[in-house]
């Protein structure tokens, strides 16, 4: 992949609906290479829809707008094609798949996204071992079934393990921090930083809380209300929001204050 100045993710005028109900009402978002952005917002503001639409969830209908990955149109691609192009979604509620062993699943995923060679041999085994050690995941995990009987924290660590093995160009993390204790949040943040910082990759973190952002230190924070990004700023915006709340932010915007 040759380097260029195009953002790793460019979202323009994105309007999305599901079963006739409009959810995203015009999203503009640009994530330059090497940057981590965060989206914060209340429940129902459209955060998870944004994540799912970037990954290509078939239930959502893109009514208007454009989604570009490093200049390439994502909308013409199926979810698996997007994954192979380097898009990764860490799910808020990862699916459990009884009968599918974690080890086999990881090998298949890495083979699909990074090529069969990457899923074989000592190189893969070493990367897997190192990532599991970093995330404090025991070896016995590999023989369990995907997300079957996992605790909330285990599910989130498993998503980050996949992130570290797949090394995506764009990682979208949908509330990966929710339900994690502080050690878990630190570990997850370390995983995200290791994939993005100092690379040409990018990440979009969707969260309710500013705590994970203290460990990731995002380049930009966006606030979403009612299917729109209503405010953007540096990481201090997350603290401002945490101190004053969404009602205050809405009042500020109503009074004409612009956050950008």
């Amino acid at each position, binding site marked *: 992949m040759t380097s260029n100045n195009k953002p790793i993710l460019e979202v323009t005028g994105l309007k999305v609906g599901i079963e006739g109900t409009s959810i995203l009402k015009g999203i503009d978002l640009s994530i330059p290479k090497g940057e981590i952005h965060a989206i914060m917002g209340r429940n129902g503001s459209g955060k998870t829809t944004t994540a799912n639409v970037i990954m290509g969830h*078939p239930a959502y209908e893109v009514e208007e707008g454009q989604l570009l990955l490093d200049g390439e149109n994502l909308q013409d691609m199926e979810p*698996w094609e997007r994954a192979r192009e380097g898009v990764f*979604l860490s799910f808020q509620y990862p*699916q459990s798949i009884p009968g599918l062993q974690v080890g086999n699943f990881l090998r298949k*995923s890495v083979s*699909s996204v990074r090529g069969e060679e990457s899923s074989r041999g000592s190189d893969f085994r070493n990367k897997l071992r190192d990532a599991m050690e970093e995330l404090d995941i025991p070896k016995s995990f590999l023989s369990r079934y995907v997300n079957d009987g996992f605790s909330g924290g285990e599910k989130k660590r498993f998503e980050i393990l996949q992130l570290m093995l*797949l090394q995506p160009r764009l990682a979208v993390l949908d509330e990966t921090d929710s339900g994690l204790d502080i050690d878990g949040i630190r570990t997850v943040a370390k995983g995200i930083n290791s994939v993005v910082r100092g690379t040409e990759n990018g990440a979009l973190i969707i969260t309710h809380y500013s705590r994970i952002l203290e460990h990731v230190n995002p380049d930009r924070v966006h606030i979403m209300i009612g299917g729109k990004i209503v405010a953007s700023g540096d990481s201090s915006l997350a603290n401002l929001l945490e101190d004053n709340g969404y009602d205050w932010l809405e009042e500020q915007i109503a009074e004409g204050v612009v956050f950008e």
Partner: protein
Amino acid sequence: MDSASQYLSTEMPDRADHLWRYTPWKRIHPTGNTKEIPTDVTSPLIGLVTIDGSPLPPGIVLKEGVSKSDGLPVEEEITKSFLEAVTEEAKYTLSVDPKFRSKVPIVLEIETVGSLCSAHICLEIGKLAELELVTVVRGDCEWFGLLRTGSTGEGALASDIVVNLLNEGRLLRIESISIPRNSQFKAGTVSSGSSMTKADLRYRMFQPGGSLNVLGSILSAGEMSLDHHIEIYHDSPETFSRLDWNSACGGKSKTVGTGMLRISKGSNGADAAQLFQNLLLSGNAQADSIPELEVSEHEVVGCGHGTASGPVDEDQMFYLESRGMSPSESRSALIAAFLNSTLSEMGGDLMHGWLVSELDSDLSELGD
């Protein structure tokens, strides 16, 4: 009275019977003429090997003839007497010594011969034996009748898996196994062959402490019609049973799973549950699951049953596709996972790996 006379003097079963509702006796009888006992039924080729080709350990042997086992469940007279009559020349006993141990699973290979073929296998598993046994049925016959009877030993630990890999044809499989005191028995069925199957599988725990796991991994495709009936008898205190039956149904196939769980008076402390799950892979596939209970004892630990049928889960598909797997790869992986959740419980890693490799090509076809 010999078996043939017994069969001919028995009243033909009524289709209203629970057992015969889906596959009437006439359809699974080798000629369709239920008054007839065909004389041209051949014996299969039978061999005993280890799963990895290593020499058979001492203490296990296949010998001619069968013996009577204690504590067998109530049997369906029609099919039992019929199969006993047509297996006169093909009766074998798999004899396992007390305290038998093997590092590798044992495979009983059955290769059918001719158009109509049948065998009666009797299991004689000794006290405190530990055994993983796979009985594999292969071949091109038009009809195969398999009668399996026998008993595990007290305190034995056995996995007994029957794998149906017949190319076409019809399979009539009748099983009648007793489980004595403190014996733990896993009875597995893996089926991806034969165009029609009628199986009547019965297990009876007749002494305290018996434990039974019945597991099914069933693949049906094309126009297959697979009918498995499983009866579990708790006839003693402190007995345990679980039935987990997973069927993946594609094409225009029809799959039926019926369960009958009987807990007799005096079987206090019995703990039983049944779950039938069907994965529907096409709009034309049919799957029926009917678990039934007959509980005559109040003091039971548990006694439940359930069924679930549905297509491949869209959210699971999206999860796998988000990891780069194409729709057909994702679908295949989900079908394999569904069947594997019962397959993986049937035995240790060696047996599991072997079963997966045997089913691999059939699984790929179902995923398409």
